């Protein structure tokens, strides 16, 4: 029995000590806070419904302190003074039990019987509450939300006069937010990050209407985790539906403009089929047959149909006969007829007027080469090459473009003769000249002998198709051999020899050692 009684007493003592300790922790923290914030000498606050007043003094002074109080100027009453050591200072305090509210309280501190401090106050204006109890943070199940709740101060008649502050921050973040709540003891935190751990604190204070006071201390931190982001199925459906509509719209646009897009991405390879109707379909590509069948229709074509740049014939004329260019009247009439019959074609594709004259000249040369060689000098309106040997005064035209009239001089010593003519397209007419031509120039020339005149001039009509000819600049050594002003664009060998030129159409081999002359 005695042991049981002593054990009970020990338990009660421990509980009381715990209560006192807890209260002491809150009391000391409140005292510490008021020592910083309150400027009055006598600092007072109301815990629950009891008013506590305290002041601080230095330790080395040992005095007798007396605390008295009175309500509404009635009789003064004394209060028992207690003390707490705080470093090098001592805290003296007095707790007034069952302090009346809504009335004026006068307090005085006497030291050794002398008035030290005095103050008048209303107790309901100095509420210093404990932090809210039971702070709880729970997930509401909704994305970015947390439910926070707590208990109000256990004060009758005052719970509807409180204001709360809730502070929250993501774990590890220094930036926090504060929410103010009036009267209510719960709060829903919105706009939080998903799947994040948050720390929450709370504190309380009277709202200042019926009661006034200080902010309580912050509660101990409480943690809560927001739920992970959840994709709303309705949103998924809407996104899919909108995506489907966009796909259909884009498909419609693409199909309506597919021709344009195909033309841009895969342009058609141009073919001349449309210019030659029926050539590939009816005549299987037989151009000759197609031409023979379509001669009549082709005459009506405009000259602008053929926009390609046709090769300009290169004609090398001979100086042998200057009067040869004057065609006979018969030849002119024949040429005119041929012009009329070929009016449907472009001028480039028909034989030039002087082609017949050249043929005649060649035949004449063949019959009488000596008479022709001296006087034949072809003139035409096409580009031609003149071979001028040894004459420095002669002007050499450097023609680099096939479309320009090509003038080439083969100068020889003591001679000065320059003649230009336009080459005859398609004309493999060989003009008069002395010397042999290289195999690179495909043409035909009468088999006759050119008389020398000095070395004389050699003119040669060469068809410059622009493709078959080998155009390459002549080397400087070759140019030096021919003279300073000689610049040839065509790689062409022309050996001027005082012997017959074969007119059988045989290709002349180049590089003959028996002949000398300009070599391109």
């Amino acid at each position, binding site marked *: 029995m005695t042991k049981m009684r002593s054990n009970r007493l020990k338990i009660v003592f421990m509980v009381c000590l715990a209560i006192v300790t807890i209260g002491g922790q809150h009391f000391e923290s409140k005292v510490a806070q008021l020592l910083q914030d309150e400027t009055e000498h006598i600092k007072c606050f109301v815990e629950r*419904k009891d008013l506590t007043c305290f002041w601080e003094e230095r330790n080395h002074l040992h005095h007798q302190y007396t605390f008295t109080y009175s*309500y*509404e100027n009635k009789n003064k009453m004394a209060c028992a003074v207690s003390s707490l050591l705080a470093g090098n200072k001592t805290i003296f305090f007095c707790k007034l039990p*069952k302090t*009346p*509210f*809504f*009335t*004026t309280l006068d307090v005085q501190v006497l030291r050794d019987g002398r008035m030290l401090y005095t103050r008048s106050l*209303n107790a*309901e204006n100095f509420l210093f509450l404990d932090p809210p109890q039971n702070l709880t943070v729970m997930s509401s199940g909704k994305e970015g939300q947390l439910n926070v709740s707590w208990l109000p101060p256990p004060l*009758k*008649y005052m719970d*509807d006069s409180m204001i709360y502050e809730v502070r929250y921050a993501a774990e590890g973040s220094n930036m926090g937010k504060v929410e103010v709540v009036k009267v209510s003891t719960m709060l829903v935190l919105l706009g939080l990050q998903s799947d994040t751990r948050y720390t929450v604190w709370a504190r309380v204070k009277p709202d200042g*209407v*019926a*009661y006034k006071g200080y902010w309580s201390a912050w509660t101990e931190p409480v943690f809560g985790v927001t739920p992970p982001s959840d994709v709303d199925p309705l949103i998924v459906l809407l996104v899919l539906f909108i995506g489907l509509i966009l796909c259909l719209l884009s498909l419609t646009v693409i199909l309506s403009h597919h021709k344009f897009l195909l033309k841009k991405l895969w342009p058609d390879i141009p073919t001349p089929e449309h210019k030659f109707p029926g050539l590939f379909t009816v005549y299987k590509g037989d151009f000759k047959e197609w031409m023979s069948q379509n001669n009549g229709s082709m005459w009506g074509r405009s000259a602008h149909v053929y926009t390609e740049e046709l090769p300009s014939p290169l004609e090398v004329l001979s100086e042998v006969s200057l009067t040869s260019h004057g065609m006979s009247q018969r030849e002119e009439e024949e040429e005119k007829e041929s012009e009329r019959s070929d009016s449907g074609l472009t001028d480039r594709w028909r034989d030039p007027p002087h082609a017949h004259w050249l043929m005649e000249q060649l035949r004449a040369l063949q019959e009488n080469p000596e008479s022709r060689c001296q006087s034949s000098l072809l003139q035409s309106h096409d580009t031609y090459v003149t071979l001028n040997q040894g004459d420095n005064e002669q002007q050499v035209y450097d023609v680099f473009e096939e479309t320009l009239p090509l003038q080439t001089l083969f100068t020889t010593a003591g001679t000065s003769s320059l003649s230009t003519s336009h080459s005859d397209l398609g004309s493999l007419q060989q003009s008069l000249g002395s010397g042999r031509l290289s195999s690179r120039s495909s043409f035909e020339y009468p088999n006759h002998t050119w008389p020398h005149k000095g070395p004389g001039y050699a003119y040669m009509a060469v068809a410059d198709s622009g493709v078959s000819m080998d155009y390459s600049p002549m080397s400087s050594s070759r140019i030096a051999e021919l003279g300073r002003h000689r610049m040839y664009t065509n790689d062409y060998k022309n050996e001027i020899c005082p012997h017959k030129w074969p007119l059988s159409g045989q290709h002349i081999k180049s590089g003959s050692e028996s002949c000398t002359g300009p070599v391109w």
Partner: protein
Amino acid sequence: MFYIKLVYWTCPGLSSPLRPICDLRVLDHFIKEAWDAEAALRACKDACSTATNFTVPLTRVDFDVWEAMNIEEQAQEVQSGIHVLNEAISSLQASNQTDVLQSHIDASISNIASIRQVLRSLSIPEYVPPTSGGEDKEMQKVSSISELFQVHINFLRGKVRLLLANAPVCHQGVS
């Protein structure tokens, strides 16, 4: 909206019963205006002094004592105090005061009238003057206008608010 309701209820001749005004925010509004008046008059302590004394109610509240009183006793104490305050503040209207003080006096008189209507809506018994002819025990004397308005604010946020917060009509149906 609240003021419209109060005007409707204060109009005489209305036969419809008053709906109980249990929301303490109504009284809190009057208390805030009483705070403004007390703060304004605290500054003119000397300029606002008067030669006569005012009879004003006691404002002290001992929670243990208050809880021991029944509703009728609490109502009687509140109604008598409001009556006395109204007489004391109304007596200031006759004297020459500044415009600022006059506006606070007028607002306080109006608010007291509204509070009476609120008490009526809560079925709080009306004030009955003592028949003995002696002074009320719960009264005191003040000598300045600033003290008068200090009593005014303390009485409203003390006894009046405690009475309204615990009005039986507002707690009907709550276990």
